[in-house]
């Protein structure tokens, strides 16, 4: 960590003062101070090792129905005054936005326990190198090579606005990903995330990835087609990420680009999805980037669409209060669920796999992308361990396949859910997920490894 610096909320309030002097009718300052460290390893050695310290001020300047946004990482008074003048200038050049709802009024924000960890804030390069060595040691034992990264992030986030919002919170997390690969092209994967990085068991994750790589040796080709699958937690992350991106935002619904309709069934009875930043199973946060308290939102309950997430603007259009899912301004994509969780089921891993007469065990997906957003039709590849299962037993590794599959169809086909969950990093936030068994998944192509 850098030497003691001015509190981020104090920086935010200084920025507001300059915006008010520049004539803002309303204004909001978001300040994010980040200390991020990351150690990358490949071919069983550390090859990149980086550190970053920065503080960014994002100022939303409002004059009537006009809005301008400017940002800087220079924190002296002259720079913040210039920031306010810039935001004011670009604000006043615009036509009015008739439906701009204004900034959110202050509300009660209860600070969620467990958002930060002193151990993560104080993490050292030596600790990260030690974790890398533990992973490498596991790979050595399995006669494969280790690849991956170990990241520790300490943040301080503050939001203040001229209506009285004024909140700040320290947050932290650690994240380890491991890919183990052998000379024959075999590969395995493991990942862990936690607020307290010392809770990530690098040796265990190294062993998991190395073991899977060994099991992936001498993979054989399999014809693409429809197969029932067990998706490990690493693959389920992609389902939630993609559905969050395509459909769980109120703006997506308001613009008619979402699959989401309250009351519509999109999954089997076993599927319950929530967004809950207060759940300590994930990486908690107390408020969003507009300073609004994070509300738990049930997205899908027993397969049926319930609610989407809101920011201040979509909430005003809908005649309700924000659920605390605003992103930093300017944000043309709308609110986003950053803390998704899938409710666990009752099946052990053995029971999930045991339920496959002939199907595939999928470790994770790679490079997925929506082919048809409203149908949640997605294509992507399997990666780092794909196995054929017959009569409930894993019979051997198969080469990777391409799928082209509606993720809504996958939710509808969920026939068993794992009772254990993992905390993993998703596209933008943290996701807590179990493994699932899906009755049919459409694979449309094959590759050479």
């Amino acid at each position, binding site marked *: 960590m850098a030497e003691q610096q001015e509190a981020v909320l104090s920086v935010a309030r200084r920025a507001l003062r300059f915006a008010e002097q520049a004539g803002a009718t309303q204004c909001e300052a978001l300040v994010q101070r980040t200390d*991020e460290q990351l*150690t*990358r390893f*490949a*071919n069983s*050695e*550390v*090859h*990149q*090792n*980086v*550190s970053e*310290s*920065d503080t*960014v001020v994002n100022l939303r300047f409002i004059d009537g129905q006009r809005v301008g*946004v400017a*940002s*800087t*990482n*220079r924190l002296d008074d002259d720079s913040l005054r210039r920031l306010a003048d810039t935001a004011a*200038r670009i604000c006043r050049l*615009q*036509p009015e936005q*008739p*439906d701009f709802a204004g900034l959110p009024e202050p509300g009660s924000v209860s600070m969620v326990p467990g958002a930060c960890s002193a151990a993560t804030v104080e993490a050292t*390069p*030596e600790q990260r*190198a030690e974790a*890398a*060595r533990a992973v490498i040691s596991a790979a050595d034992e399995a006669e494969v*090579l280790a*690849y991956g*990264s170990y990241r520790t992030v300490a943040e301080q986030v503050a939001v203040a606005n001229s209506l009285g919002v004024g909140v700040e919170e320290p947050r932290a997390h650690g994240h380890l*990903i491991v*890919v183990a*690969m052998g000379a024959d092209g075999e590969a395995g994967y493991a990942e862990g995330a936690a607020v307290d990085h010392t809770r990530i068991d690098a040796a265990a994750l190294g062993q998991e990835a190395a073991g899977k790589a060994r099991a992936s040796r001498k993979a054989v080709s399999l014809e693409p087609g429809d197969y029932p699958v067990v998706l490990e937690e690493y693959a389920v992350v992609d389902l939630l990420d993609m559905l969050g991106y395509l459909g769980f935002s109120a703006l997506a619904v308001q*613009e*008619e*680009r979402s*699959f989401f309709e309250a009351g519509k069934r999109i999954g089997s009875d076993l599927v319950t999805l929530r967004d809950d930043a207060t759940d300590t199973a994930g990486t908690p946060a107390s408020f969003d980037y507009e300073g609004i308290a994070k509300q738990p939102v049930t997205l899908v309950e027993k397969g049926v669409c319930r609610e989407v997430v809101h920011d201040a603007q979509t909430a005003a259009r809908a005649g309700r209060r924000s659920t605390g899912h605003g992103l930093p*301004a*300017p944000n*043309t994509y709308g609110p986003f669920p950053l803390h998704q969780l899938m409710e666990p089921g009752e099946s052990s891993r053995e029971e999930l796999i045991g339920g496959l007469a002939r199907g595939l065990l999928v470790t994770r997906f*790679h*490079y997925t*992308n*929506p*082919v*048809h957003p*409203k149908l949640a*039709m997605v294509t992507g*590849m399997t*990666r780092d361990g794909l196995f054929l299962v017959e009569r409930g037993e894993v019979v051997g590794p198969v080469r990777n396949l*391409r799928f*082209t599959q509606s993720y809504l169809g996958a939710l509808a086909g969920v026939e068993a859910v794992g009772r254990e969950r993992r905390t993993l990093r998703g596209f933008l936030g943290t996701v807590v997920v179990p493994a699932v068994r899906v009755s049919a998944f*459409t694979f449309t*192509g*094959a*590759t*050479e490894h």
Partner: protein
Amino acid sequence: MRDLSRRALDTATQQGAGYADVRLVRRQDEDLTVKSGRVEAVSMGETEGFGVRVLVDGAWGFASSGRLDAAEVDRVAGLAVRIARASGTALRQRVRLDDRPPAVGRYETPLQEDPFALSMDVKIDLLLEADARLNGVKGIAFTETMYHAQREWKAFAASDGSDTEQVITHVGAAVEVNAVEGDEVQRRTYPDAGGGYQAAGFEYVRGLDLAGRAEALAEESVELLSAPQCPPGRQTIILDPSQLYLQVHESCGHPTELDRVFGTEASFAGTSFLTTDKLEAGFRYGSDLIDLVADATAPGGLGTFGWDDEGVAAQSVPLVKEGIFVGYLSSRETAPRIGRASGGAMRADGWNRLPLIRMTNINLLPKPGMSLDEMIADTDEGLYLASNRSWSIDDRRLNFQFATEVAREIKGGKLGRLYKNPTYTGITYEFWRSCDAVGDERSYVMLGTPNCGKGEPGQGAHVGHAVSGARFREVQVGVGKW
């Protein structure tokens, strides 16, 4: 500023670095978005800071900060050395850099109309006009027009005496229109889905004529709602430049990154099928018509600069020559491992990121003989595919699948009816070997993407692609169950 650079280098070398470099970067961004007739977002951002990269006993360390003062420079340079020493505890092969003469000089993007000197209301009016034209078409659900400009000033200095200054300006703009009916959402974009971008001034944005292209685009998005689904099968396809550039990006640009080949991106984006034995063997990547270069000197390209971020001068590197794989995108660390000198492809996303091997401008060179129109006239039966809608490729860059916004039937050398939701898939080298026509200079256009993702922590790169359109035979189209 130069004092801070010198201080960082001195501190790092005094504390044990055998090599050190420092980049001071100041970046300015301007973004405008108009959505369905409303100015949705106007923002300006600036960020500045410095990054210190060191080699200590053959191990890398990098540290960066947004605070530009002497005490912070000392802390960050010292931290970079400490990090390198930690790296050294898990090192099997010491890093060796190739030799290059110290880089000294100044580079600035040539431009006619400085986008940052131009009043904001000119840009807003341009977007509002295009957006109004889009919304003038009946049946449109929502629209989005955007403009982005970025200017980066950077000073690079290294312990070997290098000292360069560069000012690079990029601009981009796009229109997007969506028609919705039930579960069907049909999008059309221009100049392409990610926006048209160049290293240029505002003259590039004016030249796009967004408003002039809007109406036809909007009509096509409405027409797509009732168009038949693209039929499956093996077909001849012609890729418009608005799709071909991304095909080049994914299936040529990324697999020729030498750091991927050596495994250093394996845990994130993957590796590459273009292993070094294929370079030695003269692997056939494509048909004889395929000439691909990584050209950091190409006018207007997002990957055009004076020097890369480790002080190697901009150059044009052949990647594929008459279909044969001949070269990589490389760095001072990776190139010596294949007995070559760096091709100058190390680029960092700002002051707080380590330089990685990135694409510069990966260009498919035009072939004299046929314009795109003549290529269509020369095709009995097939599909003309334009504007990317989605992309995906496996972790060795072999199996790819793309969707485009639109397909036009080609019959008897003429464009015919429209198909919706087109997709095509293949294996990289089989696909490029099936190419039997590449467009000539008349349709050769510089496109690019400002959001090529790579690395951890994530880095976005601005990369360019000049292409002219091309024809491929026997390609699988219409993938998936619809």
